[in-house]
């Protein structure tokens, strides 16, 4: 996953719900240096009885906010979705460098 262009990751999930899987896996995909390189990661755990849907909000350097639906999307499609925008930013950054 390309994480260079992500500035903010906000997750909310109930770990006892089976639908929290993709949000939790997304957190484990972030590199070990994510926080030290300036990414803000906020995780909020919901109590066990809560039925609130899990949420994942990703903000990018260009200001785009992606509100990903973790309830139905699997981790593969979430990564695909995030990478699609990241690749675009990567292309722009490459052109600016060249």
């Amino acid at each position: 996953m390309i994480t260079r262009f992500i500035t903010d990751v906000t997750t909310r999930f109930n770990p006892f719900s089976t639908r929290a899987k993709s949000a939790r896996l997304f957190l484990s995909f972030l590199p070990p240096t994510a926080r030290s390189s300036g990414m803000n990661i906020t995780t909020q755990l919901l109590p066990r009885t809560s039925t609130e849907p899990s949420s994942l909000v990703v903000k990018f350097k260009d200001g785009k906010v992606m509100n990903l639906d973790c309830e139905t999307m699997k981790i593969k499609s979430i990564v695909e979705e995030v990478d699609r925008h990241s690749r675009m930013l990567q292309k722009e950054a490459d052109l600016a460098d060249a």
Partner: protein
Amino acid sequence: MPPRVRCAVPRGLGSAVKPTRLSTQSAAQLLPSAPATTPATRQYATAAVSNRFQLPADYVPPTQPPTAKLGDTRKSQLLRTYTSLLRSSPLILIFQYNNLTAVEWAAVRRELGAALAEVSPEGTESAEIAANTQIQSIRGRMFDIALKIVEFYDPSKVAPVKASTLSGEKVDVVYNHDLSAAADKAMRAAVKKGGELPASSVYGQILPLLVGPLAVLTIPAVSPAHLGAALRVLAPSPPAFPAPTRKKRPGYHDPIAQSGLQKLILIGGRIEDKIFDQDGVKWVGGIEGGLDGLRAQLVHMLQSAGMGLASTLEGASKSVWLTLESRRSGMVSEFETSLGLRLDYEACLAYLVSPPLGAILLLILERKSDYVRFHAWQSSLLFTALFVVHLLFSWSTFLSWLFFLGDLVLIAWLVFHAYRDADTLDRYEVPIVGAIASRILDDE
């Protein structure tokens, strides 16, 4: 390319059982039945040893060379480790860890060890508990199987089977270890694919947690003191579980430890075969005095039941109220004030209300909060000293105004610190006067 593992050259079966020359000492020991001195008739060596045949101790089958994998990372060994861990630890916390590096793990373990050592005096049982508490990352799949074996497999119910010994007699043998076929069968029978598990099943409740990279903290006894200490380090949540202060544990606040701790998420726990979420774990960690404390509360309630029915009912409810009240006051006493104002506001008042008079008034009124009293002492001492300085220099208007401006800056600076550090109750000491104030307060 040379082989990665240097082992004895695999000897084939032929060489192992080739006693062609019985004159050597070892061969004679290996095959005691073969007459070494006067063979009556000529016969094949293999035929002579057919019923008493033993492989040498260092025999390596050519089809199974020794593995290069470390013993304790093998799946079979992991399974044994996990089942014994699950059976021997009544208190297990489950964490999700997101890409911790090795140095971060080391820092986390160091801080955890220090916090546990703090609550357990040397040479007691609780020091034993602290020494055997550990946090380790687990292999999810093997942990899953271990959970199933521990819950659904009862080794005492396995029937013995007949097996023959070397000498040919039949004996009863029980194969009921965790890697046995019986364990596998019981586990598979209980958890069918697509089948529903009963709601009371621990495995069924814990299953949704087993996602992604996981680490478990295992404590060999249900000890809320140790659990509380671990929570203060691994998942701090003031006011019940405040993180160690910068002054007490500078190592906790270093960047490596902090970045490691940020990546650990407490997602749940298993305490005595019950599954708890984060709040539940914190509730258990907040029980004062542990199991003995709860028992004492129960005994107290039962004792008060002896004084007639009316007083029983009253006494029980009263003792519950008292317990709750004392727990509450015990838990938050550090953050409570006797004036009823918020702690941080009151500490700021010590500097804001016409120092040093306001501070002295606060010293008289506030009896509960150490934090506020410290700032009141500091303010009264500091500004009394400054007042004397003002008097000494009152002949010069310019210097008086200069000192007044300095006072304002000082007040602003101290108010800022008193407000900010109220979360952690860190005392912000100005040189000399702060130390004196702190000493006075500790002697009270």
